[in-house]
């Protein structure tokens, strides 16, 4: 490729914003892959709407990250000119769409967290993060409702939809723990009141997830071993393929606008 990667000075605060921005961008991009391919028009639109909400959140978080970094970077450079090892998103959000069940279980695990997370972040001492949280909170609340209703219908639907939903839960469960992980840099932001401690959300998250999964006649795996690595750039094989598509235009035609 002809365009060099940018370098990012990852202070704890920059990294914090970057991680959340990457979550939103990668999940938004994944959902956008359904555009024109979903099994029914209604769901095609629903998934595209959610994708747009997430990409909107990503833009605000990238812009904020670039501003506090105070270098030459901007939202576009952060999205298009970092390599896979520089991406800081959760492994959960980069997992492939699979079938509808896998897409919706992934969305459900993430949205059940994001809903609580953004609501808590409205009290951040950082005014920009609090403002982004106030906007994102309403979006995430709907994403959660949308995914929950689907999980219930897939799980408590036909034999095949039940089996597919259960397979998606079994596959994605090990990626859910990373949402609650905190490193030393984030710990300092939590103490400063800029970030919130995700550990404080875990019980409520599990409560929501267990409730919906139970209503859907599905079960959570007993296994509590969790994958991690996305937050420090150790990704699954899937992210590289995703980025090659997401970044292809800017890598081929640097600075392209339309």
């Amino acid at each position, binding site marked *: 490729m002809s365009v060099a990667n940018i370098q990012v000075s990852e202070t704890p605060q920059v990294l914090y914003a970057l991680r959340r921005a990457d979550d939103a961008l990668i999940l938004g991009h994944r959902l956008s892959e359904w555009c024109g391919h979903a099994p029914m028009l209604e769901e095609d639109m*629903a998934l595209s709407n959610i994708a747009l909400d997430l990409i909107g959140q990503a833009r605000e978080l990238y812009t904020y990250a670039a501003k506090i970094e105070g270098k030459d970077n901007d939202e576009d450079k952060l999205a298009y000119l970092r390599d896979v090892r520089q991406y800081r998103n959760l492994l959960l959000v980069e997992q492939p769409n699979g079938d509808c069940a896998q897409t919706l279980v992934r969305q459900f695990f993430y949205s059940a967290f994001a809903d609580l997370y953004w609501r808590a972040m409205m009290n951040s001492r950082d005014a920009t993060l609090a403002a982004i949280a106030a906007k994102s909170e309403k979006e995430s609340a709907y994403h959660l409702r949308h995914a929950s209703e689907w999980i219930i219908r897939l799980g408590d639907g036909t034999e095949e939809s039940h089996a597919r939903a259960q397979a998606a839960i079994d596959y994605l469960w090990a990626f859910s723990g990373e949402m609650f992980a905190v490193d030393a840099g984030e710990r300092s932001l939590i103490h400063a009141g800029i970030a919130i401690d995700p550990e404080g959300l875990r019980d409520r998250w599990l409560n929501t997830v267990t409730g919906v999964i139970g209503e859907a006649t599905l079960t959570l795996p007993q296994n509590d071993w969790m994958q991690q690595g996305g937050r420090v750039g150790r990704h699954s094989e899937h992210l590289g393929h995703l980025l090659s598509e997401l970044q292809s235009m800017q890598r081929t035609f640097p600075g392209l606008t339309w």
Partner: protein
Amino acid sequence: MATPNTPLWEVFIRSRNGLAHKHVGSLHASDATMALQAARDIYTRRGEGLSIWVVPSTAITASDPAEKGMMFEPAETKIYRHPTFYEVPDEVGHM
């Protein structure tokens, strides 16, 4: 493409307080809750609404287009039913 088993719903949106819900189109959904979500996602993406109704299309009884003459033509010659023969005083303002 919707599966043949997915029921059809008619969607009504109220755009502002004080206005009536207005028919905007239809969609396929498995039940009322899903229809309401789909209506939100399809018909209110550009801030069109404050309230949504969804109604099963099968609940609607429609007039027969073949009976158009009997149903609607008799009204066409009764122009005196339009309230256009009254002088409205200027002081009334917009009516």
